[in-house]
Structures are given as C-alpha cells and as structure tokens.
C-alpha cells in the first residue's frame, strides 16, 4: 500500500474539514438567519460543487491559480511559489469542492433551532455571538457532526479536482484515490485492492458511527 498517499489524504481531509468548519459556521449562520431576498443566489453558489463535474471546478481553479490571473500572481508575490500542483492549492480546491457538504447540514440544523429559544436568550441580555455558542450550536450538534464527517469523507474520496489542480506529485499532491488510479493503470491490482478496501472500510465506519450517534434524533435527516 502507498502509505505516503494515505497519510497525505488523511492530513488533507483533516485540514480541509477544519478550514470548512471555520468558514462554514458563519456562512451557514448567515444562510439560516439572514432576511436578504437575494440569499438564494448564495445558496446556489454554495451548492454548485454538488452538480458541477469536478473537472470543471478544477479547470476554473487552475485558471484562477495560474500566473496569468491576478489571484495567482498575488499568491506568488506573497508566498514565493505558485499554487497549482502544490499542497496549498490542493487544500483550497478541496475546501471549495466540499463546501456544500459542510454548509448545508449546518444551515439546516441552525434553521431548525426554535426561534423562541434564540429570542429568549437575546432578551436575557446575551449577545447574538454568545447566543450562537450557548444555544444554537449545542442544539445543532447533530448537524455539526454530520457536516464534519461528510466533509472529511468527501475530501478523502475526491479525485477529479485533485487530478486537475494537484497533479500527481508523490508526498505533495498524490492522494489515495490517485494512487489507486495509478496502480490500476499499471495493472498492479493487488495494492490497488488493498487501498480501495481500506477506503471502503474507513468510509463505512465513519458513516455508521455518525448514524449511530444520531439515531435518537426525531427528524429524519437528509444527507446534505
């Protein structure tokens, strides 16, 4: 088995999940509670990675990160290297690609918290910010857990975006799914089968664990 690729995949999935949690909490809060009439546009943008072919997303990311695009040039000036085919580039791509898997369960969970509880908290002098951590987040634990698990598992299994943005550099951008693809291309079925079985087992265990924790929740949950 390609342990280097497995380690890289786990590291990438962990970092992606962490970044998504930091971005996802405020974004999901805004989506759940903002009264703006044009909110649906943001919702559509967040959900795009669900329907776009990974290659399309990867293609645009590659263009944006490239030396001819202002974003790509700004990054190069700041950090001294280009984004495509680097771990940082891969991380940015993964975050965008898994965005709906974090934001949608969070927003759904926040929106289902009884409005009366939130208002009761405000009337007791507790700020909106603190109300989020003292009432909304604790009552949304199941949605937060789902978002974390789905983001992690989805990043672990991504292929198209990684191939477009990251390439296939051992130790830097070669993830498990690409390692499997390589092994199959080289007719090297035995290691491919072992790695694939590992991914299958990990995915199943993580999802089973999540469902088990949520089994007492009365609301039937949607995956995303």
């Amino acid at each position, binding site marked *: 088995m390609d342990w280097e690729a497995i380690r890289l995949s786990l590291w990438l999935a962990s970092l992606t999940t962490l970044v998504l949690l930091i971005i996802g909490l405020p974004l999901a809060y805004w989506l759940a509670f903002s009264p703006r009439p044009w909110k649906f546009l943001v919702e559509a943008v967040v959900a795009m990675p669900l329907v776009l072919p990974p290659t399309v997303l990867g293609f645009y990311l590659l263009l944006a990160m490239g030396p001819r695009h202002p974003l790509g040039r700004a990054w190069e000036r700041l950090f001294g290297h280009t984004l495509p085919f680097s771990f940082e580039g891969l991380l940015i791509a993964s975050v965008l690609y898994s965005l709906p898997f974090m934001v949608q369960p969070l927003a759904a969970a926040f929106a289902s918290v*009884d409005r*009366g*509880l939130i*208002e*009761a*908290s*405000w*009337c*007791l*002098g*507790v*700020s909106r910010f*603190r109300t989020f951590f*003292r*009432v909304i987040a*604790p*009552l949304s634990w199941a949605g937060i857990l789902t978002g974390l698990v789905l983001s992690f598992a989805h990043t672990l299994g991504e292929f198209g975006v990684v191939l477009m943005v990251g390439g296939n550099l051992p130790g830097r951008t070669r993830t498990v799914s690409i390692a499997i693809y390589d092994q199959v291309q080289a007719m090297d079925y035995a290691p491919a089968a072992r790695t694939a079985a590992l991914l299958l087992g990990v995915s199943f265990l993580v999802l089973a664990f999540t469902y088990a924790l949520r089994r007492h929740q009365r609301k039937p949950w949607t995956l995303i």
Partner: protein
Amino acid sequence: MDAHLTCDAERQFSNGITVEARFEIPGPGFSVTVLFGPSGSGKTTALRLLAGLERAHRGSIHMGGVCWSDAARGIHRPPQNRNLGFLPQAYSLFPHLSVAANLSYGLMLLSHGERSMRVEQLLTLLDLEGLGDRQPGGLSGGEQQRVALGRALAPQPRLLLLDEPLSALDHPSQLRLRKELRELLRTLDIPTVLVTHDRAEALHLGDRLVVMDQGRVCQSGDIQQVFDRPTDPAVARILGVETVVRGRVESVIDGLATVAVGPARILAADPGGLGHQAFVCIRGEDVAVERGCGPGAESTARNRLPARITSLQPEGSLLRIGLDCGFPLEALVTRQACHDLGLTEGDQVCVILKAAAVHLIPHD
C-alpha cells in the same frame, strides 16, 4: 399619570397589515398593564415591539427617560440592552440545560458564588426547591411556567413582559396560578405588560387595560373605566356583553359571598381565592326584571335589587334594558315580555339575579 414607559410605535408587515402599539404605563413600581384583544389583533406584536424583537417602522418608545426606539432617527436598541424580562408564550426553556442553568442563563456577569445564591433565591421564591438539577422536559406545565418566569426575573429586569403566561396550562392550574402570579408581581414591585385574550385573566391580573383589535389600539386606561365606558361598539364587543363592576367582598359564608357594589349588596357563588376586592360580572341574559319591588315572592333567586330603567334599546328580537341599581346594569329580555309589562324609561322595577349567575373574579 406620570408615564414611565411611553410607547407609540408601528410596524408594517409585508402582507399590508399594520400593527400599532400606542399606550403608556405608570411606574416604576408595581402595575400590570394588560394588552387585550381577540387572536390576530396584534397584541403579541405590540409586546415584541416593546421587547425589541420587532423593529418599529414608525414612532418611538421611551422607557424611564431612555429612548429605546425611534424610527425617524434610526434608533433601535436591541433586546439585550433593554434590561427586561420576557416570558414567551411557549416558555422556551433551554432544553439542553438543567433548571438551575436555565435560571442562571442571564447572569453571566455575576461571579459563580453570586450566581448560585441567586438561583437558590429564585428556586425558593417560585416554590421550585429540589428541582434545580432536573431537565425542563421532565417538568409539569406549571413548573415550566415558574422556571421560565424565574429565568426572566433572574437579572432583575426593570420591566416584565408576559405573553399569555397561563394559556399553556389546564384550567384548574390557571385559576390557581392567576392569584399566585398577581401576588408575586406585587412583591417584585416592577411594571408588567401582559398579553391575554382571556377576559377573566385580564380582570384578575390587570390594573390597566389596552384593548386591541385588527392591529389598532381601540382604548386604553384604568381597567374599570374601560369596562364602564367602552368608547365604541367594537370595544364593547371585544369586552363582551357582560356588566363588569368592582365590588368589596364583605363576607363568605357556606360558599356564598356577599359583595358590596355601591349601595347594593349582591350574593354570589364563591369562586375560591377571594380577597377584599372582586370584579362582579353579570350577563344580560341572566338578569330578570319585575314590576314593583315589594318584599318579594318566594323564589330561588337570591338577589332582588330595586332599580330604575335608564334606557331601552332594541337588539333584533330582543331588547337591551339599561338599569341603574346603584351601579349600571344591563338586562337582555324579549320584546314581547317588555311589551306585556309595559316598561318605559324612568320606571321603578325590581331586578332579579340568581347567585349562581353572578360571576366573581378576585382582584386585590
């Protein structure tokens, strides 16, 4: 009246409905102002404007000399900075926190020791001893109501807002808690604004009445004045057809209470929980009128009062007779009966009332 809170605010909803909140409350001590009206009349919205949970589109709200809201100047003080206690209709206890944690939720600024002392005080005050570690889900309706009230009182608010505080309870508990609630509010000595659609609850708990209908404030003022002199038929309809007068309870013997209303004495069934004062409610349909007022033939009716007819007003096949028997009273009789007796304005008659048809609401 030296107004403590002046509210003259309006909110428009996207469906074209406008709700206004226009009333004053005295203060800063004990008083209960009741926002009263049928469902959909905008009472709860008015309360939410006061709480700052709704933003006013027009007008202003001033409390104790501080501006809470002024639409023209773009001022809207959020609920966090209004120092008020709010009891939502559904109680909205935090389901993930224990009773003690619910009570101390608004006490973040206090030290740990002060917090637990205050929680102990509240548990004692509200008769919730020993329930501090319970989860809200395991409490009875009455206990939940008291925890929610305690949570609102914990930060020692300067204004208390109660949205249908008793409506989630069964009827016997409502009757018992009305008395307890008014006594508690009196001990706390802060102004309270209470929303209800229940007339008996309004009469029992309130000092001042704000009658609302279709988003408008129809009338406001002292509760007895509003019941005595509704400004228009809409208010009279909302208040109901009954005569409502304040009386002094003189005695309660064998389940029969004697109440002095002006010069008249009225016997009525004891509803329980009577103190010194009570509202006497009499429905026009329950009042019978006789010619002359002699010592009285034998009858099961306990009340025979001399009265003078002040007005006669047809109402469909019925006739509404306005009477003066030391206090204003209305009787609803058939036209036929009135014709047979030949009743006219100014006639001296005898009013007959069964004690069981006189409804007393304690009000101390």
